[in-house]
């Protein structure tokens, strides 16, 4: 990647922290061995794996490291949580509750589960993307075995009231799973205080390596494995362990513990400067998501009369990498289901721009976006038949 690219698409893919790569290198260059082997080479790997597990556990305040199961990433963790709990608890009920703004890996896994007799109810969110707690309460019934609610939304940045949600779910004796991919390492997440039974954790989202993730499973939770084999990871996730990946994720967790509050303060300042600068200088621009219950690195703004993909391409020509919620930039040609669930009209949702900041952004990056964006919006609006005369 060229030096002068302004990368503001950390929600799509993140840079692995160089310190993480350094920590991983010895486990690729020098050390190897199967963590299940009793010899010294194997034990060396086993001990690195367990140290990494302890680091991830510490980051989310899990009671025991053994509650952390390493997977291949957040998608697998989501699959494992939903399918594992559903199939293991079928004797107790067949009802699952989710929200309309979950990640596609949650939504498609739930769709898959309906083929096996599970019923899924999707609770609505408000205009900010917050789950309607009353609706949630009324949706859970005595057949409900599992409720899944994302800790914070990757796209619009809204942070849910997870403790309140947990109280509701547990008062009805169901399990709570939360996809915390967008939150862990960015904001403090405490599985004990938050009352979480299962939690999906991503590695790359917190500057760790790709190809690894984890699922937190509170001790005593009834779940069955997704991947069956030699019984690694406490029998819950077979396959020879990805030790270099785990070491990287462990290092990323350690860095998050040490630097999260600093990162969050710095990024939320940049985020606010970005949002305020845009809303102030560009007419007909609106914030998507919650003004305060918001991830520190997320700025999502929509612009009337323009379409998101042409906006992303225009910014790319200026060396700025961002995302959009428009239909044209998705594989399905549908606008973001998150924005639609929040009640934003289709045409408006098309003009959404997601700018996600990360550890490696600098203040200049924000200034650069604020400098070029008004001109780009103006140009696209001049071309658009939707733009009213007085806005041109």
């Amino acid at each position, binding site marked *: 990647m060229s030096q002068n690219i302004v990368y503001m698409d950390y929600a799509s893919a993140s840079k692995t922290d160089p310190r993480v790569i350094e920590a991983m290198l010895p486990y690729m260059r020098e050390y190897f061995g199967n963590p299940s082997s009793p010899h010294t080479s194997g034990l060396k790997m086993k001990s690195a794996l367990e140290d990494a597990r302890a680091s991830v556990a510490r980051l989310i305040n899990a009671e025991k490291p053994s509650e952390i199961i390493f997977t291949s990433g957040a998608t697998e963790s989501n699959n494992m949580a939903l399918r594992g709990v559903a199939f293991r608890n079928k004797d107790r009920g067949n009802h699952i509750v989710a929200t309309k703004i979950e990640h596609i890996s949650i939504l498609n896994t739930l769709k898959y589960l309906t083929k096996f007799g599970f019923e899924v109810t999707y609770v609505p969110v408000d205009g900010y993307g917050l789950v309607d707690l009353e609706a949630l309460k009324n949706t859970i019934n005595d057949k409900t075995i599992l409720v899944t609610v994302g800790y914070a939304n990757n796209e619009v940045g809204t942070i849910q009231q997870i403790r309140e949600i947990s109280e509701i779910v547990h008062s009805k004796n169901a399990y709570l799973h939360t996809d915390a991919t967008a939150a862990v390492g960015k904001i403090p997440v405490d599985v004990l205080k938050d009352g979480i039974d299962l939690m999906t954790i991503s590695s790359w989202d917190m500057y760790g390596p790709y190809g690894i993730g984890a699922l937190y499973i509170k001790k005593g939770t009834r779940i069955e494995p997704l991947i069956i084999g030699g019984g690694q990871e406490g029998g819950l996730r077979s396959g020879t362990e990805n030790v270099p990946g785990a070491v990287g994720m462990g290092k990323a967790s350690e860095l998050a513990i040490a630097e999260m509050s600093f990162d969050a303060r710095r990024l939320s300042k940049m985020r606010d400067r970005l949002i305020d600068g845009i809303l102030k200088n560009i007419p007909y621009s609106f914030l998507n998501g919650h003004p305060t219950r918001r991830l520190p690195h997320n700025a999502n703004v929509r612009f009337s009369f323009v*379409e998101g993909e042409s906006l992303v391409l225009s910014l*790319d020509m200026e060396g700025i990498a961002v995302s959009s919620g428009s*239909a*044209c930039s998705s594989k399905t040609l*549908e606008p973001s289901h998150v924005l639609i669930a929040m009640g934003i009209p289709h045409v408006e949702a098309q003009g959404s721009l997601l700018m996600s900041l990360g550890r490696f952004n600098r203040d200049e990056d924000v200034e650069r976006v604020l400098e070029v964006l008004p001109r780009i919006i103006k140009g696209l609006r001049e071309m658009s*038949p*939707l733009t009213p005369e007085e806005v041109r």
Partner: protein
Amino acid sequence: MMYSQKVMDHFRNPRNVGEIKDADGIGKVGNPVCGDLMWIYIKVKDNRLEDVKFKTFGCGAAIATSSMITELAKGKTIEEALKITRQDVADALDGLPPIKMHCSNLAADGLKAAILDYMKKKGIKPPEGIKIESETEKCDI
């Protein structure tokens, strides 16, 4: 992006953007709910398209195809212009990604709609078999 260099060139420097105030025909196609809306303006003199302009709300492909159709159509007779197909527009742009062939490739339709509008105003009977494909297609929303 998966776009050809030609598409990116027309996206970066779109030709003939704007409206023709005293247009002889206007074609409005697409649906902003689906992400693309295209207005094509034509000026006709001696049965030839003397000027063609456009306004488009949409993705890179929508803007590039709009720009390309104005170049393809300018100077052509009405009969010649009516024969321009979606495939012609896509070919002139060195192809479009498969997913964009349908929804964003509206320009040929926009031109046809503008010519039909012109013919209607002039009381000219359009030739048999001219149809605006995008009017019968649905985006899945």
